[in-house]
């Protein structure tokens, strides 16, 4: 009898685990998913680095073979670190408000509102800016392996329009 209950118990465990695997594809619960929590924590290290300009913790959150996909081409972890300090230097008053972050065991989506004043460097027209950015990061073993930045077409076009004017005035 004892054997049977042990068997039942292991069967129960097995199904509970199989269930975890089966539904790991899409998830919403960061509280009950340790892998998702780890990914969210790593993503926060990156967000914090952009806010502070301090890239010293990046290696703990970003894999060595990380690829950041940007409109200027793909970049690696070292370029990411360089960008963190360049951004802080060029946009010292950049304010990043995290409006929402959701993650599962492979992806984290972070919706951020960026505001501040641009000095006209790095392709951003001089003057105040206020736009949203959606950071999509893919994780493996709790570290970011890929990243894409998404923007609202309307906000992107608004940022590009004044630039054309500057060129015309030249």
């Amino acid at each position, binding site marked *: *009898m*004892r054997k*049977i*209950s042990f068997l*039942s*118990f292991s*069967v*129960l465990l097995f*199904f*509970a685990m*199989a*269930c*975890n695997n*089966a*539904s*790991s*594809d*899409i*998830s*919403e*619960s*960061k*509280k*009950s*998913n340790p892998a998702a929590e780890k990914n969210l924590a790593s993503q926060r290290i990156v967000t914090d680095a952009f806010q502070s300009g301090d890239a010293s913790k990046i290696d703990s959150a970003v894999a060595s073979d990380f690829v950041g*996909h*940007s*409109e200027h081409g793909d970049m690696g972890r070292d370029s990411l670190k360089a960008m963190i300090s360049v951004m802080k230097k060029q946009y010292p008053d950049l304010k990043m408000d995290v409006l*929402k972050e*959701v*993650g*599962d065991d*492979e*992806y984290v*989506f972070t*919706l951020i509102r960026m505001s501040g004043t641009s000095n006209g460097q790095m392709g951003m027209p001089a003057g105040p800016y206020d736009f*949203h950015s*959606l950071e*999509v990061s893919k994780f493996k073993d709790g570290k970011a392996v890929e990243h*894409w*930045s*998404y*923007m*609202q*077409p*309307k906000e*992107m*076009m608004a940022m590009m329009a004044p630039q*054309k004017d500057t*060129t*015309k005035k*030249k």
Partner: protein
Amino acid sequence: MKKILFFFLGCLPFVFTSCNNSTESSTASAPPASNSMAEKNLAASRIVTDAFRSGDASKIDSAVAADFVDHTDRGDMGRDSLKKMIAEIHKEFPDMKTDVIREVADDDYVFSLMHFTGTSNGQMGMPKGPYDMHAVQVVRFKDGKAVEHWEYMQPEEMMKMMPPPPPAGKK
């Protein structure tokens, strides 16, 4: 002892059931009760995705609130405009393939990362020819129905789709 066995056997169907439920609605394996709102939001989000795929907007009212606001690059639009757009997009892009790469939800929001491929006839601001692009649909929910939507795109892919800017110096 018999009681213990019954307890475990009784648990087994429960695990099965909860597993089935969460797999059906493709949500996490956490206790369904704590995720019911997120699950409901995901289900509503899928009704909208399916409507865009099929061109059939008849189920939209069950997933989208009457006071829904769609924030687009052409201004804010309501639920009726959404329905019209579903039919229009299906008509203008009949071979559009929508792959949902990932959906993640919580009690308020659903994020859906999508990959669109197909051929454009040159309508609706999309250059003629094949297209291959990504978008993230950000949808805010209230009481299980969509109340706001924003579309996010990759700047790189967006710039490819836009007509080249006029040469500098020329008007």
